[in-house]
């Protein structure tokens, strides 16, 4: 039982990290990026090829180094960011809305095809394996205590990421990104460099996604094209949407509900003969239904993004909501202060 709980929590933390990355791209910057899981996958693949040592026949893959896990993770994150820089530089230049989504969908399918078909890259369809208990030897952990260590590691990373994105969220950059999302032309009129800002957000988000992928590789100890598909991104979108698009706490809540909660809810589904895929398929159906219902009935999610306050102490302005009612806004503000 406790093992099960540990694995659910580990998986949940990893997915929360990925979702926080995607939230920067979609929640703040407003770009519906379908390539996101490609950056997660690249992070996972790179972590593996950097840690599992040289390829032995018949497997083939690039690099094949035996670097320490943290260094491999760092390089994996950087490679995800580089890929995002290339894709984003092309796709964000002129495209918005569905055209942006379609091009990113294309990009991820190209990556998926190459990962699956081009054997010298990541051993093709059979994928990579052999990353057992990263850093376990270093801390002298045996296989019973290791899962707790890895859970701790993932939770710590999640907290660090959460802290950083919260800082970023309230920074000038984070605020400016929201202004792009709401009205790109107005933001441009106030002197924002749209393209560069969106690209920055895209690359940062993809880097966090790559970090999630790297931790995922350490957790699974293997990665291959049947373990991921570009459609996986929808699960992350569902989590963000349910939690509250744009809100960091909301995203973590969303992952708790949509990833861990659904897993638990469908855990006791009856096993159907000859149908090993029944429970996962049922989970995806629920995910799809919830996604549609939330877009229709509660697009702001369970924990909506908070309206932003004017932090300038000299300003008399209240919140954005109170703009129409200056008196009420001011009173509320004093009360809060």
């Amino acid at each position: 039982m406790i093992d099960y709980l540990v694995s659910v929590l580990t998986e949940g933390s990893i997915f929360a990290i990925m979702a926080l990355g995607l939230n920067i791209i979609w929640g703040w910057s407003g770009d519906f990026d379908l390539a996101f899981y490609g950056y997660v996958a690249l992070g996972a693949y790179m972590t593996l090829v950097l840690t599992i040592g040289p390829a032995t026949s018949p497997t083939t893959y690039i690099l094949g180094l035996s670097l320490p896990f943290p260094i491999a993770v760092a390089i994996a994150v950087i490679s995800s960011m580089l890929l995002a820089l290339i894709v984003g530089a092309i796709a964000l230049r002129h495209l918005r809305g569905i055209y942006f989504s379609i091009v990113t969908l294309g990009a991820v399918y190209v990556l998926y095809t190459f990962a699956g078909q081009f054997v010298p890259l990541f051993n093709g369809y059979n994928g990579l394996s052999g990353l057992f208990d990263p850093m376990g030897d270093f801390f002298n952990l045996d296989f019973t205590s290791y899962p707790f260590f890895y859970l701790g590691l993932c939770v710590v990373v999640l907290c660090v990421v959460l802290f950083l994105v919260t800082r970023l969220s309230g920074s000038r950059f984070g605020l400016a990104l929201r202004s792009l999302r709401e009205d790109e032309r107005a933001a441009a009129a106030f002197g924002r460099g749209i393209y560069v800002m969106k690209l920055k957000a895209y690359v940062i988000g993809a880097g966090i996604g790559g970090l999630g992928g790297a931790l995922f590789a350490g957790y699974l100890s293997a990665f291959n094209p049947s373990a991921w598909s570009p459609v996986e991104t929808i699960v992350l979108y569902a989590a963000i949407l349910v939690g509250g698009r744009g809100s960091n706490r909301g995203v973590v809540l969303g992952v708790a509900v949509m990833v861990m909660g659904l897993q638990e809810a469908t855990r006791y589904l009856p096993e159907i003969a000859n149908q090993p895929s029944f429970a996962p398929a049922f989970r995806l159906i629920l995910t799809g239904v919830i996604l549609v219902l939330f877009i229709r009935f509660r697009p702001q999610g369970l924990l909506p993004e908070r309206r932003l306050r004017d932090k300038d102490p000299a300003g008399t302005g209240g919140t954005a909501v109170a703009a129409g009612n200056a008196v009420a806004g001011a009173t509320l503000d004093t009360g809060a202060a």
Partner: protein
Amino acid sequence: MHEALLTLGFGLVTAAILSLSALAFTLEYSVTNVANLSHGEILTVGAYCAYLVQQHGGGVILSGLAAAAGGGLLALAVHNGVVDRFVRRGIGGLPTFIATLGVSLVIQNILVIIFGAANLGYTVPQGAPRTVGPFLWTDTEIQIMVSAVVITALLYVIIQHTRFGKSLRAVSQNRSLARVSGINANRVAALTWLLAGLIGGYAGFILAESVGTFSPYSGFSFFLITLTAAVAGGLGKAVGTLVGGIIVGIALEFFGGYLSASYNLAFAFAILSLVILVRPRGLFVGGRRSIFE
């Protein structure tokens, strides 16, 4: 030279399937302004409906009709159940697009639960290849191409020469204006989606016939190629889409025949990205947005 002609022959088969699928997609887009990401599932459901009919001893014609009916009903259900409600409430194109992605996930996995995730195939034989001029086609492939041409011609007549077609064109150009002119835009949109579903379901059947096998995911992969054709032709434009389908279909066969079939999807997307980046409104655009340009 001979080999090139053979490849062209296979390309024409792919082009026939692709054009039908892309036309259906464009019809959906033209009346609702929604890029329907669950379009691939219309094809998949068509393929499975035909499979069911063949399991009960139905022939090719009955299978084709069942595929069309299944696709049509699904498209109508997606329109009335999801898309129309979103459009009417003024929820924008992008959120609706995301919702159709959710719908696609739901349908795929319902099929996984009912039929399993493994590949299935039809029992009706393809027939021996025969030489037609310089080409080499099986009976099935000839059936695919002939039916595609007939359906396209029918569609042209419906859009250009019927009262419904006139309303369809009106709604696709300006939904609000069509409404104040006394056209029941919701009904026209629903019927258009039904029509698109009939074509899409049949396209799914001939796709499965031509490939030989199908799975709950095959429609979605083919949808990615459909998207290439539709965007290359210009979203929401029937003639452009038709030409786009033919060009992309033939290009894919040549790419697959001479380079590598495994990278077909990647190649399709290379075309798509290029088109979107260089000519985002399609290769053959004039000025106005209309289904017949």
